[in-house]
C-alpha cells in the first residue's frame, strides 16, 4: 500500500510539467544566478574585478607622475585621470581636478578618488610624518573601494619610489610612519548619517517585497477566473483593458503604501532621513510601484494557476533581485554584471533610491532612472494586455 502511494505520487509528478520545472529547473537556475553573482568573477569582493578610481595629480612632478603610472599599472585598479569636457564621443578631454573628482564620487561615477596635492612627491617613500599626505575621497556606501585604494596606494608608492630614483629613507618611529605614503581618508557622502547602509537596505528590501506582493495580489485575477467573477465582469461594459487598468492602479497604490510604511518605520527606528528627501522618495516610490504593479500583472496573466504564479514569482523575483542589488549591492558586482543587471527595473529603482538617500541628488538627476522605470512600466502593461487576450471572447 505504501509503495502504491509512492508510485502514485511519482506518476503525478511525471505528468505535471510545471511541478517538474519547479522541482528541478528552478533550483538550478537559482544556483547559477547566485553562483555568478557571489562566486567566480561576478563581484569585486574576490578581487577579480577592478576598482575604478579618479586620480588628481595636483603636483604634476616627476615623482607624482611616477606614482600615477604605478597606480595605472596595478591590475586591481582602473585609473581615471581625465574626463570629457562635454558629452559626445569625440569631445576633448580635460584633466580631473579635486572638485570634479569629488563630484564624480558624489555622482556615483566612481566609488573613490585619490588626490595627490602639491608636496606629495617629496613624501613618497620618505616615511616622513610631517610631509604632505595624499587624500582619499571615498563613497562610504562602498565599504571596499576606499580601503582597497588606500592599500594599493602603498604598493604603488613603493614602486614609484623605486623607479623615480627616490630614497626609502628616514627612521621609522611607529606603524603609521611605516607607510611609504601617508594619506587621509574622507567620506564625501553620508557623513551626517548615523547608519549609512539603512537607506540602501530599506530600498532593497522594499523593492523586492513589492515585487512579490504585486505578483501575489495580481494572482487575484486567477482566483477571479476560477470563481467566475472575471467572466461576469467581462460581460459588463468594462472590458479587459479597463479591468487591467483598475487592477494596475490598485496594485500601484498598494505598493506605494507598503513602501511608505517601510520607510516611515526606517525613519522612526533607524533614523532614515525620509523627510529630508521626501520629494525624491515620492518620485521614486510612485514610479517603482507602478512598474512593480505592471510586473505583477504580467506574471498573473502569464500563469494559468496559483501554483504556476507562485513558482514563476519565486524564480523571477528572487533572480532579478539578486541581480538587481537587493541582496548584494550592485556597486560591489563586476562592471559586466552591473550592466547586465540593468535588464531589471528593480536595479534602476535601487539606483534611484540610492541617488535620493545617499547622494542627495536633485530630482533632475533621477531622470535616467525614472525614464527607464516608466519605460519598463509601459512595456509590462502592453505585455500584460496581450497576455490577457486569452480571457477575451474566443
Amino acid at each position, binding site marked *: 500500500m505504501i509503495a502504491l502511494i509512492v508510485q502514485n505520487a511519482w506518476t503525478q509528478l511525471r505528468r505535471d510539467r510545471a511541478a517538474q520545472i519547479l522541482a528541478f529547473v528552478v533550483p538550478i537556475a537559482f544556483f547559477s544566478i547566485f553562483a555568478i553573482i557571489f562566486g567566480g568573477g561576478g563581484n569585486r569582493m574576490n578581487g577579480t574585478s577592478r576598482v575604478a578610481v579618479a586620480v588628481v595629480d595636483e603636483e604634476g612632478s616627476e615623482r607624482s607622475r611616477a606614482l600615477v603610472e604605478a597606480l595605472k599599472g596595478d591590475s586591481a585598479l582602473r585609473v581615471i585621470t581625465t574626463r570629457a569636457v562635454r558629452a559626445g564621443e569625440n569631445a576633448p578631454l580635460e584633466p580631473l581636478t579635486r572638485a570634479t573628482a569629488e563630484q564624480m564620487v558624489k555622482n556615483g561615477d566612481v566609488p573613490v578618488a585619490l588626490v595627490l596635492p602639491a608636496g606629495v612627491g617629496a613624501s613618497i617613500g620618505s616615511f616622513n610624518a610631517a610631509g604632505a599626505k595624499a587624500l582619499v575621497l571615498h563613497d562610504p556606501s562602498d565599504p571596499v573601494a576606499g580601503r582597497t585604494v588606500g592599500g594599493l596606494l602603498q604598493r604603488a608608492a613603493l614602486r614609484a619610489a623605486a623607479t623615480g630614483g627616490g630614497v626609502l629613507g628616514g627612521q621609522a618611529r611607529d606603524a603609521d610612519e611605516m607607510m611609504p605614503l601617508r594619506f587621509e581618508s574622507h567620506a564625501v557622502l553620508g557623513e551626517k548619517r548615523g547608519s549609512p547602509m539603512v537607506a540602501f537596505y530599506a530600498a532593497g528590501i522594499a523593492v523586492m517585497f513589492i515585487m512579490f506582493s504585486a505578483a501575489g495580489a495580481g494572482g487575484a485575477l486567477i482566483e477571479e477566473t476560477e470563481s467566475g*467573477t472575471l467572466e461576469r465582469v*467581462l460581460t*459588463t461594459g468594462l472590458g479587459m483593458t479597463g479591468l487591467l487598468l483598475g487592477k494596475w492602479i490598485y496594485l500601484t497604490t498598494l505598493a506605494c503604501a507598503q513602501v511608505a510604511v517601510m520607510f516611515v518605520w526606517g525613519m522612526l527606528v533607524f533614523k532614515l532621513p525620509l523627510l529630508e528627501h521626501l520629494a525624491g522618495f515620492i518620485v521614486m516610490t510612485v514610479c517603482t510601484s507602478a512598474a512593480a504593479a505592471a510586473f505583477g500583472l504580467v506574471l498573473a496573466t502569464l500563469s494559468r494557476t496559483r501554483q504556476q504564479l507562485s513558482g514563476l514569482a519565486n524564480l523571477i523575483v528572487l533572480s532579478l533581485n539578486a541581480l538587481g542589488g537587493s541582496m548584494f549591492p550592485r556597486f560591489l558586482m563586476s562592471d559586466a554584471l552591473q550592466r547586465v543587471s540593468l535588464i531589471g527595473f528593480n536595479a534602476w529603482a535601487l539606483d534611484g533610491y540610492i541617488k535620493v538617500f545617499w547622494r542627495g541628488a536633485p530630482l533632475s538627476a533621477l531622470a535616467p532612472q525614472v525614464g527607464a522605470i516608466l519605460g519598463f512600466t509601459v512595456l509590462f502593461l502592453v505585455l500584460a494586455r496581450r497576455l490577457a487576450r486569452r480571457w477575451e*471572447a*474566443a
Partner: protein
Amino acid sequence: MAVLEIKDARKSFGSTRALDGLSFALGEGELLGLLGPNGAGKTTLIRAIAGRVRLNGGTILLHGHTLEPEKPRRDLGVVPQENALYPLLSARENLETFGKLNGIDGKHLRERIAWALEWSGLADRATSLVRTFSGGMKRRLNLACGVLHEPKLVLLDEPTVGVDPQSRESIYDMLGALRARGTSLLLTTHYLEEAEARCERIVVIDHGRAVAAGTLVELVAQAGLTGRRVRLSLDRPATKAPAGFALGEDAGTLTASITDVAHELPGLLARVQAEGLAVRDLEVRTASLQAVFLKLTGKELRE
C-alpha cells in the same frame, strides 16, 4: 416580436463543433428551458449571447438588433453557474459593484439594491460578508447581481445546481416575480423535473443543434411518445406480472403503457384483481421529459 432570436448559430473550437446551426426564439416574459447533455453546446450558447464567444456563423438578435461580441449589453442579465461573487465583500457591496459595472448609479442604484435585497430575502444580511453565507444564500445573491440593472432578458446557467429543495423553491419564486414584470428568462438545467414543471417551452439541444422545441406536450408528440404510463402500487409483492404489465424491481409495483385511458384502464385493473392482488395506489402520466430526451438524443441527460 421575439426578445431573443438565435439564427443558425455556428461555433467550432478546433475540430469540435460546439454549435452547429442552432436556431430558436424566445418571447417576451417567457421562461425557456435549454436542455441538453454535457457538451451539447448549452454553455457555449449562453456565452455567445453574453458576448464572451465569437460565433463562426449565424446571428444573435436581441430585440431585433444583432449582438456584437464584447459590446455592452444593457438589456441582458447573466447569472453564471458559479457563484460569481466577491467573498470578502458584503451582499450590499457585491450588488453595488455589479450594479455600477452594469451602468446604474446614485439613487437608482440604491433603490435597486433595496429591491434586490428584499427580493432575494437577504435584507437582514445586507452587511454580512458573502463568505459567511450558505450555498442557497449565495445562489440568491448571485441571481440578484445578474438582474439588478433590470435587464429585459436574463440568462441563467444552471441556477439551482447544488442547492437544497427549499432554496430551489425560493429561487423559482424569485424567477416568477421577474417574469411577472415582463422579464424573459432563458435557463439551462440538468433537472428534468424542473424543466418539466417550470418552463413554458423547452429546447432540446444535442451536438450543437436543436433536436426539438416546444411545450412538454409538443415534445412528447414530436418524440412519438403519445401513450400514457400506468403505475400501480400493490399491497404486497406480486410473484408474476399479470398480462399487459411489467413487474417493478421491488415486485410491489406494476407498470404498463396504454393509449386510451378510458377504455384500457378498467381491463388492466380487472386483470390485477383476477390475480388476487389489491391496488394501493394508481398513477397515470404522460411520457416524462426523461423519456422524451432519451428518445430524441439517444442518451440519458446526465451522461
